[in-house]
Each structure stands twice: as structure tokens, then as C-alpha cells.
């Protein structure tokens, strides 16, 4: 069992590592990830939301839908723990 697990782990790791060869060099400001969408956030977010912390702007507004569900995830976790563990009062 442990051997299989180790093998699976190694294979997964090898695949992941091998594919990093196609990535842009680390820290490259011209990598696709840095020039497509994110630069617009950096340039426009202050103008469009008046929030200097770009992360907060994206979190709260551009991707606010994600964040809403993130809150709901936390809320659900609380509910799940109550449901699983808490004993109802007599």
C-alpha cells in the first residue's frame, strides 16, 4: 500500500515538475500571467473602485462572487461542525 502511494506520489510529482519547463522564467514581468488580465487590475482598480489595496479591490469587487461563496464556505463549515459534533440540548 505504502509503495503504491509512494509510486503515485512520485509520478504525480514528476509530471508536475516536468511540465514546469514550459513556464515562463520565474519572476518574469512579461509572462502571460502578468500581462493579460492582472495588469488591467493593477492599472484600473484604483480608478474604478477607489481602493488602494488592489487585493482587496479584486477580492471585494471584481471577484466578489468568489468571495461571497468563500464566506459561505466558512459558514457551511461552522454549520457542518455543529451538525456533526454538537449535541442538542435537552
Amino acid at each position: 500500500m505504502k509503495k503504491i502511494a509512494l509510486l503515485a506520489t512520485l509520478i504525480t510529482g514528476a509530471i508536475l515538475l516536468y511540465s514546469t519547463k514550459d513556464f515562463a522564467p520565474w519572476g518574469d514581468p512579461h509572462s502571460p500571467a502578468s500581462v493579460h488580465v492582472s495588469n488591467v487590475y493593477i492599472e484600473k482598480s484604483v480608478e474604478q473602485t477607489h481602493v488602494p489595496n488592489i487585493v482587496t479591490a479584486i477580492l471585494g469587487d471584481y471577484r466578489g462572487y468568489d468571495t461571497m461563496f468563500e464566506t459561505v464556505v466558512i459558514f457551511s463549515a461552522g454549520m457542518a461542525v455543529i451538525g456533526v459534533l454538537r449535541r442538542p440540548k435537552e
Partner: protein
Amino acid sequence: MISQNLHMFVLAAPLLSGILVNLLGRLSRRWISVLTLGSLGFSTVGAFFVLLRVLAKGSFHYTVGNWTPPYGIELLVDPLSALMLLLVSGVAFLASLSALKSVDQELPGKQHVFFTMYLILVAGLLGLVLTADAFNLYVLLEITSINTYGLIAMGKGRAPLASFNYIIMGSIGACFYLLGVGYLYILTGTLNMADIASRLPAQGGTAAVATAFAFILVGLCVKMAFFPLHGWLPNAYSLAPSGAGVMIAPLMTKVTVYLMARVFFVMYAPWQSTGHQGVHPLVVWAASAAIIAASALALSQKNLRRMLTYIIVAEVGYMVGGIWLANAQAITGALLHIVNDSLMTLCLFLAASAIVYRRGSLDFNHLGGLYRSMPLTMAAFTVGAFSMIGVPPTAGFFSKWYLILGGIEGGHWEFVVALLVSSLVNAVLFFRIIEFGYFPTGEQAHGHGHGELAVQEAPLQMVQPLILVAVALIAVGLGSGWIVNDIIRLVVPGNF
């Protein structure tokens, strides 16, 4: 504006009322049923109008927060997602009728917690159906998972252990998916599925893209319990409280399959058609193996609900195989089967839940004389069973028809054989149940008649949805020509 936002209200209704159930449900039991049924009923009706609107005016893109697509999170409302919206909310509505009853019996004092999670889970599923953003999909996947973990772990006995295994497997799936999305993001710089798809062909056939898709698809396969990765499902679904099982079993895997179809159509197929060797035959073979293996495992079960869970695993093989056969017939079949299988599973699980309510157990040797004591439940069960076997005019026949035709067209005879074998196995499985239910067990059969076995039907609130689903199964079967022509054909991409 209302009509433009209607699908958002469909989603928001269970979400808001889920939270409200937690606030108000602890005050009075009445609030729970009012809020649950009210919101899900509203969603069902709303989803119906969304479907009508989409059919009349064509599909549309919706951006949350009014940002232009790659910047905000995009939602896609096309005929298929509208249909899924209707399916999810409708199934959840029917299931909740039964769940309200069985939760009272199984989890007294925790109803409000249960239904909070239940409604948020429905909202998560509705969100999954709509989303067109790769990362948003991850978040919603986690919402549905976390609520499912909770709901399953509320069961008795071994349920927490099953749920724990599910957590481990589910997290692996989610992490893989996240890794895949990360790889795509690093290559394209965007998270919007359509945008990714438009930028991927420029990447060519690099190993990184292949890895990204491999991880995304494996992640989804874990979540949908595709055969070798199915280990968590049977325990989790069979040990869950029946109120949770009736909703989770029909919807979770099916919605994940739908997501896989989305990923496949929107991102994978366009990239793959730019001239890279596909892995389609491999997946179809795997699906065929999955169908056969899961059917064989189902044969060895001694408990009705466990048997059904293995059938779910087999059905996942149907749909995955259908999608990866990648011809119009098979994809039509797979998408139609998503709808049909949800309804069939719902029907069977509702029946199982009703039986548990009266008999307390689903072991085969406790099923004797059911046709006598619970005739309506068993009539509906029979319809569901026939649909699983694929007897016309129930819905299950028609999706199987398209799937097999797709297999013939694609020259994948192993898939055709697997489908036929699984139909036969299903016939054996369900007739065993029908036989158990039809013949009285030892002590019930005294002499000739067994008139002393009184009719003891489950409460009306559990039987009603069951009858409705059984009727729906036949109606969907008869209307499958319409569903295929007017809805599914519209969304099968043109290049298939």
C-alpha cells in the same frame, strides 16, 4: 431587469433562505419547511422561466458585478445550463419534501442545521451549473463538497468514517483541480474558461497544457467517482441520512459530470482539435471498464442503498464514456442521461428513504412483502427500476439508445457491449429486489394468502414526490424527442 437577473435569484433564493433557516429555524420547526419549500419552489419556477427565456431569446452571458468578462466572473446561461438549473432545483425541491419528513425522524433537534447545509448545497450546485470561470468553479465545488461532508457525517454509525474518507478523496480531487487551473493560469493569465480556450491554441501542444488538463480532469473524476477513483462513494452515499441521500445521490455526481462536459466542450476540445493526439479512446475504454466493474460490484451487495450507489458509479461511466466518444449521438446521449439519471436516482433513493422510514432497514432480507405493504412506493420504485434497466417508455431507455448509437458510430464496440451488459446486470439487480418485495418473507407467508400484512404506506409527504418523479420519468421519456431537439442539440458544439 428582473428577467435578466432571474437566474441569479434562482441561485440566491436557496442561499439566503439557507442562512435564514439557521436564524429562524431554531425558533420554530415551521420556519424550516416554509423557507425550504418556499425557496426551492421559487427556484424551480424561476428556473423554468429562465429555460423558457433562453429557448426564446438564445443563450446569454452574464457578468457578476457588471465587469467585462475576463475581469469579472462570467456566468453562462445557455439551454443546457438552464435545463440543469431546472433539474437541480426541481430535484432538490422534490427531495426536500421527503427529507423534511425523514430528518424529523432521524435527526431530531438538528433540523435547522441540516436544512441550512441542504439549502446552501443546492445553491452551490446551482452556482456550479451557471459558472463559466475556472476558479469560481473550484470555490463552488468546495462549497458543495463541504456541505456534503457535513450532511453525510450526520448519519449514524460508520457514516463519519465514510465522510472522512470522502474528505480525503474530495480534497485530493479539489487540489488536483486547483493545480490544473494554476497551470492554465500561468500559461494564459486568465481564469475565464472562454478566454482560456481562446488563448490556449497559441500555446500549442506543450506538456504543461496537457498536464493542466490531466489534473483538471482527474480532479473532476475523483469528485464524480469515476471508476478506479470511486472508493469513497458507496459508503458515503449509503450511510448518509436518508434526507441527505435523496438529494446528494441524484445531483452531486451528475453535476460534476456536467462540469466535465463544460470543461471538455469549452476548453479541452478546441485545444485538442488544434492537432494533438487525443486520449479519447483511452477514456472510453476506461469508462467501459468502469461500467462493467461497477455493475459486477453492485451484484455482490446485500443492501438496497449500497447496491444503488454502485449503480451510480456505473452510470458515471455511461456519461463519461458518452462525452469522450465525442460524436454528436454520444454526447446527446450523455447529456440526456445526466437529466434522466438524476431523475431515476432520485426516484430510487426516495423510495429507499420511504422504505427506511417504515421498515428501518434496507437489507435485502427486510424487503419481503413490500408490494403488499407499501404499494404506491413500490409502484414508483418499479418505474425507477425499469428506467435504470432501460425499458421504454421510461426515460432511461432513450439516453441509453443515443449512447449506444454513439458507440456504434464511433466504432467503440467495447462501450456498446459494456452498456448492454450493464443493462442486463441492472435487470438482474432490480428483479432481485422486485422479487424480494413481491414475495413475502418466511413469517409473513402463512399458508396461502398473506392478507394479514396490512398496507402501511409511508407518509403522504414522502409518497407525493415519489409519484411525481415516477410520472416525470415517463414524461421525460415520452418527451425526450423534444428535449433532444430543442435543448440538447443546441448545445452540442458544432464540430462534433
